């Protein structure tokens, strides 16, 4: 047993650090570190830099332009990116739809879609959830009826993240209304410009426009946009899920956030002393630190098992729960560190080009918005309750 990185892994880490030192734009990293708004342009600029380096597609096979990295290398890369304040790569294209196309798509589809995903020329969104189908995804009702060389799609998707920017959406649709729930579903790629699609904003409790409703009214989709076989979409959906959960532990993000929290708590004064010396606050910091160590080791053990050939299965559910709870706890501590200054809500100060005065300490402006926004972590990507159901069933055999 040896919990240290090998010399090769350490050399790889140095390579990643050198790259981030040189290539990560300072203005973007500063926005990430200060929780300021990232624009679509920022994300695309960074993703194109990654692609130039050949580091955009962590999970693709090498022949399609993937890195071919081991799970430990991916872990190192993700952790360093978070530490440096690199924006998270938008998962919908590169980490969600692409692996499905690579596994189930035709040669034609691979040629059509993969290059523009690698180079971030096309922006994807995920059309799974519906008003009536959240945790019970297989209960989806959006239907696609085949008419000649087209499907005609009618229905509604909801909570579609960043759908307002998307060029394409990948959807689960019902193609056989008579089959059993999971068996009549297909996986369709739909151009957002197709007539009959309407996108409406949904505003979240922190005032952000992050999610949308997407309506389909007699939308004609060419049959060649079907991925895999008709009525076998659930297989694609399940396959995608294993990718959706990679990096789910968010160890890098929590580490970076905790580091920032400690810096902040060392600056904020309470009773003439830094807050970090307050026994109660310090105790909670220690608790988070302990949980983070446990999470990191659990994550590494899971990653190493995958390295050895095992596929991370239901174990990733543990990581999702632990990781999201920890990130949420850290946002709670940020809010406490801000004290009374957690209250002011000035969204204009979230913009990097805001030139005016802040209210209270600089870090305080975004803490409450972030605390409330991060409630989503335990809801999406399979809610934490659903993860517990998976563990109970798949691991405990209950």
């Amino acid at each position, binding site marked *: 047993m040896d919990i240290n990185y090998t010399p090769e892994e350490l050399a790889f880490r140095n390579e990643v650090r050198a790259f981030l030192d040189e290539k990560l734009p300072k203005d973007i990293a500063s926005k990430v570190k200060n929780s300021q708004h990232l624009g679509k342009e920022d994300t695309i600029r960074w993703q194109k830099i990654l692609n130039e380096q050949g580091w955009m597609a962590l999970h693709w096979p090498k022949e399609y332009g993937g890195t071919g990295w081991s799970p430990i290398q991916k872990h190192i890369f993700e952790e360093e990116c978070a530490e440096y304040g690199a924006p998270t790569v938008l998962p919908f294209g590169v980490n969600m739809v692409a692996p499905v196309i690579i596994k189930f798509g035709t040669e034609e589809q691979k040629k059509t879609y993969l290059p523009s995903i690698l180079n971030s020329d096309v922006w994807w969104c995920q059309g799974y959830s519906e008003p009536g189908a959240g945790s019970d995804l297989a*209960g989806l009702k959006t239907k696609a009826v085949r008419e000649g060389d087209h499907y005609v799609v009618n229905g509604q998707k909801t909570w579609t993240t960043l759908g307002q920017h998307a060029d394409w959406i990948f959807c689960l649709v019902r193609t056989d209304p008579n089959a059993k729930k999971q068996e009549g579903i297909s996986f369709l790629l739909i151009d957002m410009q197709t007539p009959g699609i309407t996108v409406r904003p949904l*505003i979240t*409790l922190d005032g952000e426009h992050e999610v949308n409703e997407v309506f389909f009214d007699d939308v004609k989709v060419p049959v060649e946009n079907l991925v895999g076989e008709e009525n076998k979409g659930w297989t694609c959906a399940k396959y995608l899920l294993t990718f959706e959960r990679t990096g789910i532990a968010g160890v890098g993000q929590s580490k970076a956030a905790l580091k920032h929290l400690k810096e902040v708590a060392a600056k904020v004064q309470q009773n003439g002393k830094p807050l970090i010396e307050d026994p109660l606050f310090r105790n909670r910091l220690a608790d988070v630190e302990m949980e983070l160590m446990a999470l990191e080791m659990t994550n590494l053990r899971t990653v190493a098992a995958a390295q050895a050939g095992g596929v991370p299965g239901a174990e990733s559910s543990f990581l999702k729960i632990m990781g999201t709870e920890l990130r949420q706890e850290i946002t709670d501590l940020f809010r406490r560190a801000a004290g*009374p200054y957690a209250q002011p809500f000035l969204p204009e100060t979230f913009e990097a080009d805001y030139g005016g005065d802040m*209210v*209270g300490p600089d870090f305080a402006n975004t803490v409450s918005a972030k605390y409330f926004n991060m*409630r989503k972590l335990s809801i999406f990507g399979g809610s934490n309750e659903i993860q517990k159901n998976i563990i109970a069933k798949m691991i405990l055999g209950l």
Partner: protein
Amino acid sequence: MDFKLSDEQRMLEETVGRLVRDGYPFDVREKARTSELGYSTDMWQQFAELGLLGVPFAEDFGGFNGGGPELMVVAEGFGRGLVLEPYLATVVLGGTLINALASDAQKETLISAIIGGELRLALAAYEPQGRYDHTQVATRADKQGDGYVISGQKAVVLHGDSADKLVVIARTSGGDNDRDGLSAFVVDAGAEGVSRRGYPTIDGLHAAEITFDKAAGERLGEEGKAIDALEKTLALGIVALCAEATGAMEVACDQTLAYIKERQQFGVPIGKFQALQHRMVEMRMELEKARSMTILAACSLEAAPALRAKRVAAAKALIGKSGRKVAEEAIQLHGGMGMMEETAVSHYAKRIVMIDHQLGDLGYHMQQLEGLLDVDDDAA
């Protein structure tokens, strides 16, 4: 011992309940919240007409002569409706401090104006460096002619942006952290030397950063002796906040319960899942604790200062802890819907959590409580 409300208290409860039910539906509140002022002056006038603005004041001025329990009843009702108007700032904080310190002549004008709905106040006590500690006061007041001039900075003054007058705590002697030497003043919000930066808060209210630069102030009560009255006022404010939180937590629990009964997934209402039933039970348990502690604090305002301080700190700390749990669970059990601005429960969650950031949070009050562990129930 009797937990029943008196006839008068019940009437008060019904008045507030009716007002909130009829006058405060979600869409009406949203309109007021997103307006420039952030609340409705019409609603404020209704408060005046219904006598609500006089609850803690003497009958001589047209008040109700109420104490902790009466304010608790009002604030709990307001919590159910997520009331936006500056009741806490004007009546509970600004008003009762004036009531405790002012001369009869001052009261005659100020208290009557509050009760009539013509005067909105804000309490400018806490300072940027002081966090939740009301004794850390660097703002100074110096004698000049008949009056005083005040200079200093006040932080996150609740409803300070729209107040007509400010009740300001300033130092007339002593060092920045001394308990002695604090005095209270009334300052015209529009007076020369007062600059305000108003802003919305994340729970839909408004507050302001206020700078005083030799602003003229009229003293309330004896010079340098405001601390006892201030602490009594803050204790009452905490009772009102605890009660407001309890009302808001009750609605968050009710809405969540209704939602899990109605929301269908996997062919059944999600409330059929035992995992969620237990979560709902825990939310209700937190609510019961919150209500109990609010009653305890509300009925302890006239107790010996140390005992009052202990119970009030315990109540506010518990609300901080229970409130967080209820707010987070209410969102979680609503799933994606709980994250939406258009879902009422998200607004309840925000207010409940932000109450922890007013008049001392969980950490601050736990620290107070730690210092009062030896105080027992028959402390004199």
